[in-house]
């Protein structure tokens, strides 16, 4: 297990974007949460796997929305979108949008962080637009 903070470059990237962030680390995982334009995002890393970084956002699905429709829309986005994995967490009725990366050093992500954030944001916007269109 490593004591090093391999998410520090991501924290710096969030600051580069002009955003506040908070840390919530424990003995297993490193976690950063932040907001952009009022929407919440998270970054997760594991101490025993410093090459893995996940950036994501989660959204509650409206009660009236069919999970089958939501899963179909998420699947269609997975076929089409770069970087972002869309998933429906059925038990919680949440839509999750994540970017999962394998890096030698999280510093590699820093110059591309804005692009990845845009990709996450755009995917969520497209998902909910698709849901509205189907209503």
């Amino acid at each position: 297990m490593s004591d090093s903070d391999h998410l520090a470059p991501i924290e710096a990237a969030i600051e580069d974007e002009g955003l506040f962030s908070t840390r919530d680390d424990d003995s297993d995982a490193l976690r950063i949460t932040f907001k952009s334009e009022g929407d919440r995002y998270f970054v997760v890393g594991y101490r025993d796997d410093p090459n893995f970084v996940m950036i994501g956002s989660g959204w509650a699905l409206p009660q009236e929305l069919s999970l089958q429709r939501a899963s179909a829309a998420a699947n269609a986005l997975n076929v089409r979108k770069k970087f972002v994995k869309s998933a429906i967490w059925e038990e919680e009725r949440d839509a999750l949008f994540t970017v999962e990366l394998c890096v030698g050093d999280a510093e590699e992500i820093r110059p591309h962080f804005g692009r990845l954030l845009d990709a996450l944001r755009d995917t969520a916007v497209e998902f909910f637009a698709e849901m509205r269109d189907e209503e």
Partner: protein
Amino acid sequence: MTVREQLARFVEEQGHRVETARVGETDELCELVFRTRGQTFSLAISELEPERFSLSTAYEVPETAGSPAQIREALREMERADPHLRFALAHDDTIFILTLESRDVGVEALIEKFWDIVGRVRQAGNGAVEHMLDRSQSKAAADKFIRQFTKRSR
């Protein structure tokens, strides 16, 4: 709470760092500077006229955007399309500053529509850059066509 404090608190609660800069000698005019989606914005507000604000951001003029006259004409066209927007070239015409001015939006309404307004300015800025490139490309294409056309025997 002052208008400045209300707006700065809102933007910070939305997750963004805010710098406040006083404009001039008094406390009544100030600018709130924040970043979103890689772009820096400045919101100018007045405590004396809380219904009035202006939101500005700057874009680089693309190197292939054509002559200064073409760029000015492209920006004038964008202004004609939306009279609330003002475009100004600066730094030897290497950047343009885009400002949205409003005189009749209260603080609560501004807060409610804040990111839509920021999005509108961003969209207009991106649109202006695209418009400049379109104009320069179509101008180049038109020039080529005219040259070819006038070489033909009539």
